[in-house]
């Protein structure tokens, strides 16, 4: 990485920003923030351009409007072309350049923004209508039970001498209430309109002078007054009117939906416009990182070494009033990180990214974890057949989703791990849960179906662990040498590199004496020398002893590799179970063969899926926790060049599509 500063005259601003975005090679850093942080309160260079801020605000608003239209129209867009063609652009919509030109022209933009506005209007109209619709439905439901009431609502008002109450009482106690009313007074009349559910719907009229007798009885029997949505009119008429209204609203909603469906064709254009305006917004936003004076501006960023010469040349030949300075990163700088690897290893960058990028001055661990990762994941499957299926599925995956970087890397990791699963399967004789027959089992060194084989398998997992942990310490030693940190290399790192093989030597009796001697030497070495910082001898010995005690975590690390054995064995046993069940269902009369094939395919695919998932995560953990802790820290900032970003669309000529 090279630090680049560009000083340019204001007249070049737009052209220069366009140029930088188009090239996409410079990671622009916040120069203004840096300067403002250094001398707080200084007015120089900290002027926020109010006009630009306003443009950013407006553009952000427009983008959210477009986003709304794109999301809202999605269900209206007809599904077409099937899965494969929609994936041709890597999941993005393909727009030909001439159409893109039209879309982003002022007229095209205006037209599309109008469409987005219209879409927003229509959506709020639909919301409003649907709200009315649900009110009408509630009204209709409330009135339905009064359908038999002939009298217009306005007649149900009290007269001079009579009171009229309309409402419902529980049907169960209706007769009881009548007899109680009969006892209380003769001056009343009850009309039973309807009995629906557990309620009786009644109209009751009585003389106002007996109100004192009637009201308590009504209250006692749980009379609840009805409320009508209208003040006048006959209920059957009102119901018919509401029905008409509902139909009308439904028709209008249909109409709006049809209009929205008509607009759905414009969705790809809206997407293209979104992408275009998003990039315009980025161009404005990036300027907030610049340091600005009356007539000029300065920007600072990082460019990859290999791009630097060409970048500088293009800048100076395209622009005249410009100065470009390039520096080596100083020790205080923390440049962004871009890792690059050879093709076979490149997919494993996704594993590294999962943990975090290396710091700028750290080594990229990707090539170091790649072989371990593939082999471990293969061990978690331990089945040659599963390995072959995994390879085929990942090749299919690359064909289908290959354009996206993340998907391509994942498929790459799975394919390579599948190859390792074939190796592991040959070593353990596993093939779709069946033991490999005689000509193919030459390589079989472990038979996990026997207790002895399982023990061997577990020991093998530990041995692999010992090896990876040792490699981790070795890398640390080499890195210390590389950084010329000889103190740390020979006093703290090297003893571990010797100690691990020394511990292994303790196992067979022939080397036990040598191993023990080495172990003792290294222990003293660590305790006496490994602390290179402290002044007092006591602190040195104390810290040295603490470092030496790290041996216990090495044991923990190695035991952690047992998971390879457990996952591998579990895969094999489940494969066996699938075969057993398939054999059982093959006996079902009639559908036997079909059920068996279904069980075999479904069961084995499930087993591959669940164990690849589990194996992937556990394998990743072994890299992160057991391996990385020995030599790797991580935490670098990813290199994100200022460039054109496209969320929804790609601009491609039709003939480029097939390439």
């Amino acid at each position, binding site marked *: 990485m090279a630090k680049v500063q560009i000083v340019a005259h204001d007249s070049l601003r737009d052209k220069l920003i366009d140029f930088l975005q188009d090239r996409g090679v410079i990671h622009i850093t916040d120069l203004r923030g840096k300067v403002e942080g250094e001398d707080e309160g200084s007015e120089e260079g900290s002027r926020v351009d109010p006009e630009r801020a306003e443009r950013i605000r407006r553009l952000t608003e427009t983008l959210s409007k477009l986003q709304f239209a794109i999301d809202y129209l999605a269900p209206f867009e007809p599904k077409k072309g099937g899965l494969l063609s929609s994936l041709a652009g890597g999941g993005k919509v393909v727009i030909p350049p001439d159409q893109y030109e039209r879309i982003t022209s002022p007229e095209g933009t205006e037209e599309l923004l109008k469409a987005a506005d219209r879409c927003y209007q229509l959506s709020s109209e639909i919301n409003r209508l649907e709200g009315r619709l649900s009110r009408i439905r509630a009204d209709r439901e409330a009135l339905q039970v009064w359908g038999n009431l002939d009298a217009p609502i306005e007649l149900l008002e009290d007269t001079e001498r009579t009171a009229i109450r309309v409402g419902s009482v529980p049907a169960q106690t209706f007769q009881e209430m009548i007899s109680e009313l009969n006892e209380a007074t003769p001056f009343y009349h009850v009309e039973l309109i309807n009995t629906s559910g557990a309620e009786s719907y009644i109209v009751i009229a009585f003389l106002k002078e007996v109100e004192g007798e009637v009201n308590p009885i009504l209250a006692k029997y749980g009379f609840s007054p009805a409320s009508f949505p209208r003040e006048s009119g006959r209920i059957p008429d009102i119901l018919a009117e509401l029905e008409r209204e509902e139909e009308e609203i439904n028709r209008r909603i249909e109409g709006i939906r049809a209009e929205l469906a008509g607009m759905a064709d414009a969705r790809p254009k809206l997407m293209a416009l979104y992408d275009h305006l998003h990039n315009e917004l980025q161009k404005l936003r990036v300027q907030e990182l610049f340091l600005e004076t009356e007539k000029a501006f300065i920007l600072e960023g990082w460019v990859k070494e290999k791009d630097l010469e060409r970048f500088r040349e293009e800048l100076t030949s395209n622009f005249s009033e410009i100065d470009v300075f390039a520096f080596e990163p100083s020790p205080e700088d923390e440049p962004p990180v871009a890792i690059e690897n050879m093709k076979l290893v490149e997919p494993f960058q996704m594993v590294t990214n999962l943990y975090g990028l290396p710091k700028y001055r750290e080594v990229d661990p990707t090539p170091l974890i790649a072989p371990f990762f593939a082999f471990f994941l293969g061990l978690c499957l331990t089945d040659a057949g599963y390995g072959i299926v995994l390879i085929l599925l990942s090749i299919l995956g690359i064909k289908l989703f290959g354009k996206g970087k993340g998907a391509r890397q994942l498929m790459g990791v799975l394919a390579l791990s599948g190859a390792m699963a074939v190796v592991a399967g040959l070593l353990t004789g596993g093939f779709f849960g069946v033991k490999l027959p005689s000509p193919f089992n030459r390589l079989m060194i472990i038979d996990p179906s026997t207790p002895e084989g399982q023990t061997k398998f577990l020991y093998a997992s530990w041995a692999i662990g010992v090896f990876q942990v040792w490699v981790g310490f070795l890398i640390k030693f080499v890195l210390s040498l590389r950084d010329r940190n000889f103190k740390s290399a020979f006093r703290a790192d090297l003893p571990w590199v010797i100690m691990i093989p020394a511990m292994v030597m303790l196992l067979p009796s022939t080397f036990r004496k040598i191993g023990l001697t080495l172990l003792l030497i290294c222990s003293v070495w660590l305790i006496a020398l490994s602390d290179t910082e402290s002044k007092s001898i006591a602190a040195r010995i104390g810290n040295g002893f603490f470092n030496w005690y790290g041996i216990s975590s090495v044991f923990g690390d190695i035991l952690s590799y*047992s998971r390879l054995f457990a996952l591998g064995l579990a895969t094999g*046993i489940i494969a066996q179970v699938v075969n057993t069940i398939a054999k059982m269902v093959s006996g079902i009369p009639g559908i036997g063969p079909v059920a068996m094939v279904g069980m075999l395919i479904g069961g084995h695919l499930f087993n591959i899926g669940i164990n690849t998932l589990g194996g992937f995560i556990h394998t990743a953990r072994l890299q992160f926790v057991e391996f990385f802790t020995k030599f790797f820290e991580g935490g670098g900032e990813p290199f994100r060049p200022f460039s054109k970003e496209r969320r929804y669309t790609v601009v491609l000529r039709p003939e480029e599509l097939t390439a």
Partner: protein
Amino acid sequence: MGVATTFAEVLDKLFTSGQMYAIMGAAAAVVLSGIGSSLGIRYTATASAGVMSEDPRNFGRYLILVALPGTQGIYGFVAAFLVIMKLTSQVEVNGQLVTFASAMSTAHGLQIFFACMPIAFAGLASAIQQGRVCTAGVDLTAKQPEQSGKALVFGVFVEFYAILGLIITIFLLNTITI
């Protein structure tokens, strides 16, 4: 085997049968780790469904988090299968392989039963706790989808103890020869 005549005799036959204890062990391995996995998945799945009601993208990321506490149930299943293989033995009679129920003493049965306990209880507890960890991972994924891989790694830390349980169950079962 004679015909049991009284309830006491039935009980006696049942509780001195090695097969009975072995079956209890296998059942406990599947049931307890299965309970753990279902609870763990429930926490994570309901949280995921809730998050997805706001933002339905990233289904795949949530799916993986939801699947993670499911593995304990599978480990219990594997252990039970190893027990089932011990319940029968094949003997060659007149050149044909015939499957018999293994003659299993009460002591053997009890040994198998206790051998199943590590995965049964480690599976039960770790699946529930892993569900909690993965639920926190769902939160993390909702706010920062790119970080979901790290949430998975946290979940795997909990799972390791179920794996240790399974390993010990397997080796304990291996030591019991019938």
